[in-house]
């Protein structure tokens, strides 16, 4: 078989046989053949163009609106496995939110010696301006996009908690629309969990953040504007929720510390803002004084309880690759439970012994800056030149608080249609978690795929593509199903 051997493939076993959950998909691909598959891929790409599904990259001094890269072969996960992952993500986000609330208020976690005080002092994402604020529901990180990877051992690990302005959920929903047309026959025959419910759940969550006494709140999505790489998503979410898509200049905070938007009929009150602007740009009165993206007075309005903000300013304190290393301890501390999804083992170069280990073994580790996103600044030990490794060591020694190191994971693969055939390509997975009075996890999430052979960089800004992610129930899962439904499912298969 021409398919290159991967150590851990999501759809195929070691011997190249389809896994049970992927059997229907692989048998369809076999029966239609590669040419037909390529035709369907072309139609999918055309759909993406016509539907205007784009992302923006910054290149050569210009912002370019590019068609969203999509690979037609989905990643599939069995429903029962997904239910365990869901529980693990919910657990993680409850603990993280308790932690953030604690840091900005009582700091019990520090007093109890679980989290080191000097770490907080050095944190670039801690916002002293948020000390003493108690947001509604006690939740700070309402929307998170947690990155998961599967290693050779078949285990899923949490790679990153994205708690600031995680993006990608719009592509989860759009990918599904395209995949449904491409593989209509499979959607008819199998129970694939729908992903469309996300925007309703988000709407419900945002509505719950409205100031006390506001029953029918006006929601707004605050975007940095058309040149932001996730503008498509901001627009998409506003559209699906019937919220206003606003830029900073559309909003003004009145003398009454309430937020208003400028409409054709004067000023109108805004009750809840899903902000997709980083903390530091939110309010020039409090943060960067020359930010043109934000709204002067927004923090005043939020602290006064006159507007709900998601995510809360300062939530990013727990989204830092150093804090990440403490999350398992935080789960134990706040919830008294063992983590359901493990962390990737993480070496903290701020500690002398761990730093020495990292420097001695740098060729076998991935070195990550604590506060960069989008895959920038990452050094992969076994792929870096001697010069790059020396530079990484120097950077670690100059600022040990700002780096962590992890073993080089071998990301699992999924068969992917590339020039020359169907080949294994490495993937990760970003499910989205909504936390409010209750907790919701998208069924599946965004599967990102590194398209060049052997590459582990899945970011769409750096040549990554995407796949639809199917959570399949039926003979593969037992969650929430009656027996008769399972029997029907079994006989239909």
């Amino acid at each position, binding site marked *: 078989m021409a398919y290159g051997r991967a150590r851990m493939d999501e759809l195929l076993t070691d011997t190249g046989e389809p896994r049970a959950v992927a059997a229907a998909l692989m048998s369809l691909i076999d029966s239609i053949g590669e040419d037909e598959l390529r035709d369907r891929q072309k139609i999918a790409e055309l759909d993406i*163009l*016509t*539907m*205007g599904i784009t992302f923006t990259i910054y290149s050569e001094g210009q912002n370019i*609106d590019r068609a969203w890269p999509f690979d037609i072969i989905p990643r599939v996960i069995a429903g029962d496995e997904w239910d365990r992952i869901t529980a693990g993500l919910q657990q993680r986000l409850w603990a993280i939110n308790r932690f953030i609330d604690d840091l900005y208020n009582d700091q019990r976690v520090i007093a109890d010696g679980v989290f080191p005080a000097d770490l907080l002092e050095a944190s670039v994402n801690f916002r002293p301006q948020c000390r003493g604020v108690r947001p509604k529901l006690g939740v700070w990180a309402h929307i998170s996009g947690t990155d998961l990877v599967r290693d050779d051992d078949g285990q899923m690990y949490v790679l990153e908690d994205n708690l600031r302005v995680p993006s990608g959920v719009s592509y989860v929903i759009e990918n599904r629309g395209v995949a449904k047309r491409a593989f209509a026959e499979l959607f008819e025959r199998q129970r694939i969990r729908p992903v469309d419910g996300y925007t309703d759940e988000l709407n419900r969550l945002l509505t719950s953040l409205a100031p006390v006494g506001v029953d029918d709140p*006006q929601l707004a999505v605050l975007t940095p504007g*058309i040149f932001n790489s996730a503008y498509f998503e901001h*627009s*998409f979410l*506003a*559209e699906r929720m*019937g919220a*206003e*898509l*606003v*830029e900073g*200049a*559309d909003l003004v905070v009145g003398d009454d510390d309430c937020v208003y*938007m*400028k*409409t*054709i*009929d*004067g*000023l*109108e009150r805004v009750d809840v803002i899903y902000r997709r602007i980083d903390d530091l740009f939110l309010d020039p009165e409090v943060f960067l004084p020359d930010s043109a993206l934000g709204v002067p007075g927004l923090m005043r309005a939020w602290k006064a309880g006159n507007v709900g903000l998601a995510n809360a300013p300062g939530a990013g304190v727990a989204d830092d690759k150093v804090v990440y290393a403490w999350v398992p301890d935080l789960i134990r501390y706040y919830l008294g439970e063992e983590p359901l999804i493990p962390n990737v083992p993480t070496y903290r170069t701020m500690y002398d012994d761990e730093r020495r280990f990292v420097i001695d073994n740098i060729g076998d580790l991935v070195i990550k800056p604590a506060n960069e996103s989008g895959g920038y600044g990452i050094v992969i030990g076994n792929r870096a030149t001697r010069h790059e490794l020396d530079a990484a060591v120097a950077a670690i020694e100059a600022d040990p608080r700002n780096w962590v190191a992890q073993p080089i994971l071998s990301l699992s693969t999924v068969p992917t249609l590339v020039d020359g055939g169907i080949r294994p390509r490495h993937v990760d997975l970003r499910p989205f978690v909504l936390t409010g009075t209750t907790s919701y996890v998208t069924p599946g999430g965004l599967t990102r795929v590194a398209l060049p052979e052997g590459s582990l960089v899945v970011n769409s800004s750096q040549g990554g593509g995407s796949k639809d992610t199917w959570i399949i129930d039926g003979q593969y899962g037992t969650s929430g199903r009656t027996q008769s439904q399972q029997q029907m499912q079994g006989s239909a298969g």
Partner: protein
Amino acid sequence: MATLLARTADRLYWGARYVERAEDTARIVRAYNDLVVDSPSHELLRWEPLAALTGSDLAIRIPESDPSGEVTVLGYLLSDRSNPASIPSSVDAARENLRTTREVMPREAWQAINQLSQYVDATAASAVQRQLRDRFLLRVVEISRRLDGILESTMTRSNEFRMLRLGRLVERADMTTRVLGVAAAGILQRESSDRDDLVHDQVRWMSVLRSVSALQMYQRTVRGPIDGIAVVRFLLSYPAFPRSVQGCLDDMRGVLLGLPTPQDVLAVLDRTESALARSDPDVTAGTELDRAMERVQTAIAELDRAIHDRYVASAR
């Protein structure tokens, strides 16, 4: 939802104007192309007036290798992105504006805009060629019409809808006056008793009507042979024809009455109507039509400013 952001209102208005501009430019070029085909071969019909129509005449130089100006002018109008009045430039501007308002429009409408943009991107470069030209122009008109049909049949009659309509109508009125100002004035000023000329004038007037898709409706309404004065009057003042200037102004009034506190804009609209009334060919006696059209265009520009002042700048 009653809320419409001032910034969104501005982008809807201009997005619609640019789509209409692309469509109207395509209509005008199509009609001119027909006229060239109809002209007797001994008469070398020049393409420069077409560039004048879109206000681009000063920017181009026609080389000796292209005596009629066909390749130069058409290249400039159909494929040159450095020309802000070209069809691709209008489509780009429309998409840029509407990209920031997609959450307020029906999805299908956004898809139609994308389709227009992709079609123009893929085809504009070859559209100067004679065999491909008409197809290209027709397609631009068709997609623009489809977009209007989608909005008409699937969009809530909201303030968003009204701003889109307003943009369409202002641009359409402006383009109709341009067609008359340049093309018609050229014919009227060349008063001649030569029989051949009269016949050709008729052909030219037909072309003027065609360029705003009015020929058939004119014939059904006016009857009898094509007459210059009647054509001008039909395109300016016949309210039942939706592309006449009066028809556009009437529709604008209806749209404005649905928007919040439009009094200031309506006052300017009244002035636009009186400027139009003073430009009736009976009043101007068929002469100085181009100057009269300039007057109407100035009035339309004032209307545009009034809309901006009231709905975009007032909340600041």
